[in-house]
């Protein structure tokens, strides 16, 4: 039984991390209908920037997190205004090709600058074991779960409760009506993409302190994020969180009781099952768009 609790705890922790890594992707799709294939690479930028500032320059961890959020926010806004704006309204394929191109560009630029050596973000939290009854966890992971919860909650509040969030939702429900009531929609597109980029970058920086980051890891991150994204219902905020937790726990239990060798297959088996049974995901919002 102890084994079960430990596996469940492991699964919930990685599930939270999966949720955070997928949130930016699901948000950008849910609001903008843009499938961002460069999501994993934005994660990589966050992680590498976090490493450069904390481990190389010795900056404070939370100050670095703020800088990462700022840089990715500005960067995300510019990516939307300079690149995505050019193909807006031309259907889905040009955006997909654009973001795939962007992902290749970012990964190889990072490879050129940082090289292939895996790096880690310097964390102020201890990685010593912490015993909670039969379950072992580290302080660093426990703290990260907390920070993830705050970020996820903050993003949700921003979208649901603020004027900016209402403007975002209005823009993507009916762009013309939003323009008629005075919303600067071009600006809103940029800010939404910036929010997605911030969530991706913050995830990279936070998870970079317990895992490793390297320029070509973006593909793996995107792949997991897509599993969570489809599992939870494309574009659903609550779905991303539940999808992440389901994936984390399913992988942990399968790995723990069956075999760790084929654990990556679980996520995709779940995706196939979801697409067969509930093609719009667990938390579908089919009537969201006018």
């Amino acid at each position, binding site marked *: 039984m102890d*084994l079960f609790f*430990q*596996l469940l705890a*492991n*699964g919930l*922790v*990685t599930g939270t991390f999966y949720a955070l890594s997928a949130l930016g992707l699901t948000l950008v799709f849910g609001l903008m209908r843009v499938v961002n294939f460069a999501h994993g690479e934005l994660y990589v930028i966050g992680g590498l920037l976090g490493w450069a500032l904390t481990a190389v320059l010795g900056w404070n961890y939370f100050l670095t997190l703020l800088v990462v959020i700022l840089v990715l926010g500005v960067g995300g806004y510019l990516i939307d205004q300079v690149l995505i704006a050019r193909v807006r309204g031309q259907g889905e394929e040009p955006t997909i090709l654009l973001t*795939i191109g962007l*992902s*290749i560009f970012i*990964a*190889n*630029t990072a*490879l*050129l600058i940082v*090289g*292939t*050596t*895996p790096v*880690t973000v310097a964390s102020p939290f201890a*990685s*010593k*074991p912490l015993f909670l009854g039969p379950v*072992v966890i*580290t302080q*660093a992971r426990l703290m990260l779960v907390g920070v993830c919860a705050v970020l996820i909650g903050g993003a949700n509040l921003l979208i649901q409760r603020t004027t900016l969030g209402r403007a975002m939702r209005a823009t993507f429900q009916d762009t013309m009506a939003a323009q008629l009531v005075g919303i600067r929609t071009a600006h809103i597109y940029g800010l939404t993409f910036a929010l997605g980029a911030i969530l991706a970058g913050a995830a990279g920086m936070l*998870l970079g302190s317990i*895992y*490793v980051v*390297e320029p*070509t*890891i973006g*593909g*793996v991150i*995107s*792949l997991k994020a897509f599993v969570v994204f489809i599992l939870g219902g494309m574009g659903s905020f609550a779905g991303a969180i539940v999808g992440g937790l389901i994936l984390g726990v399913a*992988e*942990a239990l399968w*790995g*723990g009781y069956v*075999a*760790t*060798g*084929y*654990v*990556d297959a679980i996520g995709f088996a779940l995706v196939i099952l979801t697409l067969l049974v509930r093609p719009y995901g667990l938390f579908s919002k089919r009537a969201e768009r006018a």
Partner: protein
Amino acid sequence: MLKACLSIAATSIIMVATAAQAQETIKIGLIQPLTGSVAYNGKTDVNGATLAVDARNAKGGVMGKKIDLVVEDGQCRPAESVNAAEKLIQRDKVVGLIGAFCSSATLAIMPVAQSNKIPFITGVSSAPSLTEKGNSWFFRATETDALLAKSFAGILVNQLKLKKVAYIGVNDDFGRGSVEEFEKQMTALGATTVMKEYFEHGTTDFYTLLTKLKASGADGAFVSAETQDGSTFVKQKAELGLETKVFGVGSWATADFMKLAGAAANGIYAAVPYASTMKTPKNEAFVKAYEEQYKVAPGKYSAAGYNTLHILVDAIARAGSTDPDKVREALHKTNYDGPNGHFEFDDKGQATGFTVVLVQLENGVPNVTASNTIGH
């Protein structure tokens, strides 16, 4: 994903190579993973090979011509590696091929080298079956899992007193091959297997695996993994407070492994064909030159790149020609002294005569605790 593009690093090397084409050169093709989860290891192999090329060119190259190393990214995948080999053979007209790192990728290139009659050397791929294929164009200048297992299983069982052993490997032919070989050898010596598990390349979270390891009651864990996966594994093992002894194969005795794993690397045993602390004059010179160039101590793949390049160039020099048949004949007469001992090839193309070592990692230094020469 759709990232089958070349890394910029490789492309720029090729561009430099094309620029140098004006004068006639002897071209050697090197295929290593430059992107993906073993990209880091592939890069150190390229570094070792580049160091050897620079040294040879500084002495006038071979047959009066400069050596031109053409590097391609094989991504450790069979399909990409075959593409790279085809490109190197058809377009660059290389006289010999080195590489492919992962055994599965090397295996895929072997028939390509054979049908094009191009000598092909690997310094990394350790799946025993490769030299059993009867491919006369293929040479392996490194140990196999079986040779490594035979060398060290006795020491692990008798000196470390391991009775219950857990076997953990990366889920590819390298990981599965070395797990099988070590299990076979150690079981024959009286150890019992309490767990056998695999994980994917690029796994970030080993908590599930470690939870199982803890529950298995093993007193020693055999792990076959490369730098990134291995360092994450031992770091998370320390996080969970597990005391199980770990001994590994893969790139464990490297400066970067110990830097990434930090204090968690202390006390770990690694069976490797090369450690920068090996005490031979050749090695001391190699370490000095490598550190001067790259500011870091060489690892086993740096030595692999360095050795394979020298072995191939030696063969071309001995043959006095770039004719593939003559180079192949010359390769069979290899008599090379590298940083980690002496290399010659047997009839199957497997190298013998070099040294493998068991090291224990302590505060960033791989201390050699046992060594063994691979016999004929």
